[in-house]
């Protein structure tokens, strides 16, 4: 064993803490659960989106050369965690990732301008290939970036396709990338196109991981509060280890998962060629943690947790609803394995 000696500093800088606090305050004020609920079933709140633009939530992630504020992933995960914590009905993760992609290619400049002006919401079609696919943010976006064949393509529509009803009440829609109602423009080709697309997918996963940690943390808070208040058999239910230890497991996942996300983020931002397994690892862990956290919360809240009046179920629906658009999460372990162990050697049948 002869590995590099590295720092292991998971803390935030003062600036980062200020940024986090600003978005925490923003979402706490602007996005209570009532707002999430009233945005159902479409999963989009136009007014919140406008106010978020005022916070430069998308612009901040765009390089200064592209007209943005040049924030890195380290900052963007702080925003994403707050988005997840309030399950805010805005496709900010997709828009940031797409905007950063647009900024990376000259051909994206016009659309990027429109994005920064607020006239277009961009998104990313997560699955390589030219056919019909469910696109996150796809029911509110007019521009989707996709990998079709070897080309990184910008697909634009006059207006977004209709939302598809879904478990997470997310603004997803079928986009037929080869359809006649779509205008396509090539942004980059070959290796460059594939690399940019892959990078965007990794950024989407990182930011979604952070959002999932935020979700988990929020339902943990709900569960802990209930476990303190609710009395059964003469004692608060938090005195029963069946309850308290499940909540402890969630708390451990939140804290440790957040550390993993930060580590993955740092490498992706500063040494993207190193430890590439950390991104699928963080994403897989965070989605698993969110499913567990929301399941535990619904259970700890008992019958009440299972009613549609409960905030816990808002989160439960989105734990799958915000991730499955990228496909079966177990496949992330395959990506992880390829990075850690090298690709599998094909074995004859």
């Amino acid at each position, binding site marked *: 064993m002869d590995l590099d000696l590295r720092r292991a500093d998971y803390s935030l800088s003062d600036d980062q803490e200020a940024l986090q606090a600003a978005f925490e305050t923003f979402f706490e004020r602007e996005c209570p659960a009532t707002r999430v609920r009233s945005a159902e079933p479409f999963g989009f709140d136009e007014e919140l989106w406008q106010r978020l633009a005022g916070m430069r939530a998308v612009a901040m992630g765009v390089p200064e050369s592209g007209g943005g504020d040049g924030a890195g992933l380290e900052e963007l995960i702080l925003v994403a965690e707050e988005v997840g914590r309030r399950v805010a009905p805005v496709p900010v993760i997709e828009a940031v990732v797409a905007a950063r992609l647009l900024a990376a290619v000259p051909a994206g400049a016009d659309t990027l301008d429109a994005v920064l002006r607020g006239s277009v919401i961009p998104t990313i079609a997560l699955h390589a290939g030219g056919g019909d696919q469910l696109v996150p943010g796809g029911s509110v976006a007019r521009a989707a970036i996709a990998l079709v064949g070897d080309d990184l393509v910008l697909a634009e529509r006059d207006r977004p396709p209709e939302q598809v009803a879904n478990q997470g009440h997310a603004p997803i829609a079928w986009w037929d990338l080869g359809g006649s109602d779509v205008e396509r423009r090539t942004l980059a080709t070959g290796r460059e196109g594939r690399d940019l697309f892959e990078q965007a997918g990794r950024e989407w996963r990182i930011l979604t991981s952070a959002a999932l940690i935020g979700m988990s943390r929020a339902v943990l808070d709900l569960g802990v509060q209930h476990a303190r208040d609710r009395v059964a*058999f003469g004692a608060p239910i938090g005195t*029963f280890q069946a309850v308290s230890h499940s909540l402890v497991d969630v708390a451990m996942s939140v804290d440790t998962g957040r550390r993993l996300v930060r580590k993955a983020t740092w490498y992706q931002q500063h040494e993207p060629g190193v430890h590439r397994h950390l991104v699928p690892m963080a994403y897989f862990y965070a989605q698993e943690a969110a499913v567990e956290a929301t399941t535990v919360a619904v*259970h700890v809240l*008992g*019958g009440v947790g*299972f*009613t549609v009046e409960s905030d816990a179920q808002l989160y439960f629906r989105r734990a799958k609803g915000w991730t499955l*658009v990228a*496909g079966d999460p177990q496949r992330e372990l395959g990506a992880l394995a390829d990075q850690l162990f090298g690709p599998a050697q094909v074995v004859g049948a």
Partner: protein
Amino acid sequence: MDFSIIELDDETARFRDEVREFCKRYITAEVLDAEYRDGNGFDLELHMALGERGWILPTWAKEDGGAGLTGLKASILALELEAHHAPSITKGTTTLVLPAVMRWGTDELKAEVVPGVARGDIRFCLGYTEPDSGSDVAAARTRAFRDGDEWVIDGQKMFTTGAQNCQYSFLLTRTNPDAAKHKGLTMFLCPLDHAEIQAIRTLGGERTNMVFYDGVRIPDRYRLGPVDQGWMVLLGPLNAEHAMADSAPPVTLDSPGGMYGISAVFALEAAVAWAATPGPDGRRPIDDPLVRHRLARHALDVEMATIATGPAGRIISSEVAIRVGADLIDMVGPRGLLPRGEKGTVEDGWIEHSHRFAQGTATYGGTTDVFRNIIAERVLGLPRSAPPTKSPS
């Protein structure tokens, strides 16, 4: 040990055909769509048609409103209804309560309700849970005050599933707040005419209710069992619901069983059907080693959910439904999120629904935690894990 095929004599085979015909006729696509949409757990036409044939109380004598079925035929009936997804919650609560009515009700009360139960036009729901008491059933605070020959009921019940379909609630009340927790309770079969029913919707798509009893007056004949001894009256249906008896049916359709296992069975069947169908790339998911491995694991879990009995069956079937549902929806990927009826939905949305529905099963009729306590104390003989019980204040 005996798992052999039950050879049906001609008459029984004809009976099975008759049941299947019945199911096809009454459990239509419209009924299933309505059930998916409204989560009623009940279809009036189906229920009345069952009553017409004596199939609500199938083993009861015909003269008592039943159909005089043998155990085998009754099992066939139950299994076919289940296999055809018959909405059954209200039938279940009604027949769960009926033994307590038979045991504790006055002749007058029985004459009032039993024939209607058999016919189908009288139905019962469970009135135990309150906003501040769930698994801790005996902590109920809904008050019943005696006023001459009548009782006045004041309080609020929660999760009275099926109340909108029922005429009576099997109601747990506190008649003596000064007595020890389990000693001041009285049970009623309370008519619902004057109660206010307010719908609650669940994550699983089911409808349940809050029921408000605001000075509801009922004659004393609706009392079941002695005053202040309601806990004893309640225990029969409660233990039946807690599956404390060995609940394995004597025969079984060679697949589904278990309390909540059925939901996982259907979801797994849907997933296997999906996996055996070639995708856009021409490949069948089931030929993928990882999909195959996971489905095999789930098949094992679902098998356990269906063969477990008693409280273990209740726990395992619920937890398997939760675990399997969560992975099946993953396996299917983006389309797994789409509900019944959407463009691109998989296998009629069974998997999407099952993932949500499963969550509630760990709470219905007492949480899985409470059931583990029951096994710890009653089966393993471990000391009580709960802190000393205090009366609700």
